[in-house]
């Protein structure tokens, strides 16, 4: 039935035709499944076939669905079955998240890290402040002592008591 001339005509037609813009969304899985099961009316069949001619993936799905109707499938591995079964059945009837929630653990670790850094800075600052304060106090104490010493010597130098030079006083009288 397949002639090289017929194939050439088909290729020529494909190269020259303009694919008509699709009106609306592709037929969903239910439409394709209905077509595969032979449950569509003539109008719907024509619409689905028009789509299939331009959608290789949909045509692959149709062929696979037709094959599935006749096939007997081996059971899936028990691990896969258990994993899928675990998706439903929790006390609050919510779906178990597919990925484990690691975000909260990461947030705690980050908080602890930043707290440690802040505490280190605080301790270092206090230590430095303390050292600096002590140094300042020592310096001021030294200055005070020197000043006191100067204050005690200077008046005697400027106005010495008479007993300091007794010979002069004797001669004066």
């Amino acid at each position: 039935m397949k002639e090289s001339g017929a194939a050439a005509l088909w290729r020529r037609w494909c190269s020259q035709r303009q694919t008509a813009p699709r009106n609306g969304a592709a037929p969903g899985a239910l439409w394709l499944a209905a077509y595969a099961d032979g449950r569509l009316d003539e109008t719907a069949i024509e619409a689905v076939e028009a789509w299939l001619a331009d959608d290789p993936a949909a045509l692959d799905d149709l062929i696979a669905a037709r094959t599935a109707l006749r096939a007997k499938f081996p059971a899936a591995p028990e691990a896969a079955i258990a994993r899928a079964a675990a998706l439903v059945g929790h006390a609050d009837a919510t779906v178990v998240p597919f990925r484990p929630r690691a975000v909260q653990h990461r947030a705690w670790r980050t908080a602890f890290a930043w707290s440690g850094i802040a505490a280190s800075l605080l301790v270092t600052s206090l230590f430095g402040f303390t050292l600096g304060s002590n140094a300042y106090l020592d310096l001021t104490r030294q200055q005070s002592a020197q000043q006191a010493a100067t204050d005690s010597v200077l008046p005697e130098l400027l106005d010495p008591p008479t007993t300091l030079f007794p010979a002069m006083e004797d001669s004066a009288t």
Partner: protein
Amino acid sequence: MSTRVPDTIDLNALIRGEKGAWDGFVRRYAGLILAAVRGVAREGAELDDLVQEVFVRLCKDEFRLIKAYDPARAGLSTWLTIVARSTARDVQRRRHPPATPLDSVPEIMLAVEDRRLEPVKIPEGMLSPRQKLVLTMLYDRDMEVAEIAQVIGVDPQTVRSTHHKAMLKLRTHFALDDAGPKTERRG
């Protein structure tokens, strides 16, 4: 001897989220879904992950997808096969978008397209949807008549007849097209 997967399942219990119904559904259809995703899985893909993604999609948003299924329109096995393949393709496309190395593309394919296109010569609707579908499967997919008949749900003679009518249309069209406009042939 029938080898079909039985479609008897309590959909209402499934949609209500009953654990027993879900476990039974998983156990019954996991094999079918695995076979379906195997057909579209890329090399190196984790089949178990793809199967899990299909089940996640089925129970997502309080079983929204299963609620959209109508048993009066199509069988559950057929519908699940199509949903599984579609989901597997979507997942793989999201995780690993198909990419072609630039060096492997012939230079001619990278050329800038000439925008001066020839006018479309094929009248819209010249071939019926079924005719296009049959020719696509015959010449693009290299399928046999019996296979095509089984896929589209008709007998093989119908496929041959469809092919014959399509070829008549194409030959007529291209014969006229090759002959040129009538004004050129006069005189």
